[in-house]
């Protein structure tokens, strides 16, 4: 697919220019790329947590256009519960996104409710502040090396109507926008 884009790009920009003075729209194309990861955290507490790695290279949309990507920008993210131990709750359900090294945090978001079932079929948009968005975008600015994240799901001081052990499976979703040069 990338070959098609590259092969045609010169024709499009050069020849369309003969007929139109406003060919800006043919210089770049923008793609939304949704990425997601299921995370299962389990244990006896008091905190249960798990980490999973998400890489852009797991997605065709990234790989197909890798050489022509000019910029990647954060658009939005969300979390929802897929299943959990009955009555699972804690003092906090926390989603944290780290750089690919798994050490440097990009943002940490504590859900307003610490009851896992509140997010079942009811995803929560993770509303980030400008500083967090800037941090993410700065990381994404070097997407050639910074193309992985580590996502962590943690329930602090977990309890449930059954268990221990306790378990929660949630899904972290993020949408980024790729700017691709044609």
């Amino acid at each position, binding site marked *: 697919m990338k070959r*098609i884009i590259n092969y045609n790009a010169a024709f499009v920009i050069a020849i*369309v220019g003969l007929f139109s003075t406003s060919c800006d729209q043919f210089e770049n194309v923008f*793609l939304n790329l949704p990425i997601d990861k299921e995370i299962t955290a389990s244990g006896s507490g008091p905190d249960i947590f798990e980490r999973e790695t998400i890489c852009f290279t797991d997605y065709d949309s990234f790989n197909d256009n890798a050489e022509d990507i000019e910029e990647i920008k954060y658009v939005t993210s969300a979390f929802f519960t897929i299943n959990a131990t009955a009555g699972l709750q804690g003092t906090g359900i926390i989603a944290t996104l780290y750089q690919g090294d798994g050490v440097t945090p990009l943002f940490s978001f504590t859900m307003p409710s610490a009851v896992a079932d509140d997010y079942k079929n009811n995803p929560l948009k993770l509303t980030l502040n400008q500083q967090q968005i800037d941090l993410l975008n700065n990381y994404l600015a070097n997407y050639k090396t910074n193309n992985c994240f580590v996502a962590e799901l943690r329930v602090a001081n977990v309890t449930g109507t059954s268990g221990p052990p306790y378990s929660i499976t949630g899904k972290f979703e993020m949408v980024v926008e790729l700017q691709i040069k044609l």
Partner: protein
Amino acid sequence: MIKSSITFFVLSVLFTRLIFAQAGVSLTALPPDEAKEYAKPLATFLGSYFNSGGYYSANLPKEFQFKFSIIGSYITIPKSQQTFKPNPGIAGYENLEETATITGSKGNVYLGSQGFISYPHGFDIASLPSGIYQAAGSYYGTELLLRFFPKIKVSDSETGFWGLGVKHSISQWIKEPPLDFSVQLMINNFNFEYVGNNPKDYVKTDSKNFAVNVHASKTFNNWFIAYGGFQYESSSMDMDYYFRDPNELYPQLADRVLSTNIKGSNNFRITAGGAIKLSVLVLNVDLNLTSQFTLSSGLSIQF
């Protein structure tokens, strides 16, 4: 001829890119009903394009006449065709705000019960130039018009085009008519197919465009022609494409070739224009009030 061929080629390449350039959430990442709405302005554009430039005079002599024309069009896409209201047909994703069509700008992202559903961005196109060449021969007040571009392979895709028109002078049967007037019928067909090795990139489209018109003209001093017409037209695009389902919301449709038919918004067209005859050369310009306002001009050799 060369320029016109190049222009047509540009259209083919543009079309190639419109379909393929978005490997992420793109036209081919939408289920058929949504792809239909997203791509509707493209089908309309092809209709506006191919249904233009069919005439600059209603006069057809009884003796043999030949014309070769190069036609350029400038087609504007109205704001109303830049967005559409998505309806993904999944519980938890109702009453969504508008998102971009293929000619629009920002594709929206919606959060529903199963997570995000992402719609493709458009190409932010407010107008598009295009061109075509055609040849016509007439005898006894009846004209046959031909448009043709052979199937060519561009990288991993193949594209081709043909068009046919028939026109008959009605005024020839009327004694001393105040105006010349004729009826014309045109069909134009544009094909595109991915012929590469990756089955996941498969796309095949077949754009069919139909027009029937009645037009009139008056020639002044044998060098200036004022003309106008009323046209009924239609456009539709059959599309087969490999559906990847990047939003993971349509597992029953995912990872196979789906088909859809996209109907353009072309219905009626009113044309008004003028042409100047300079010996065997004819220059014409016309305005077309249709779904996508079109300015069309032509340079013809007529003898």
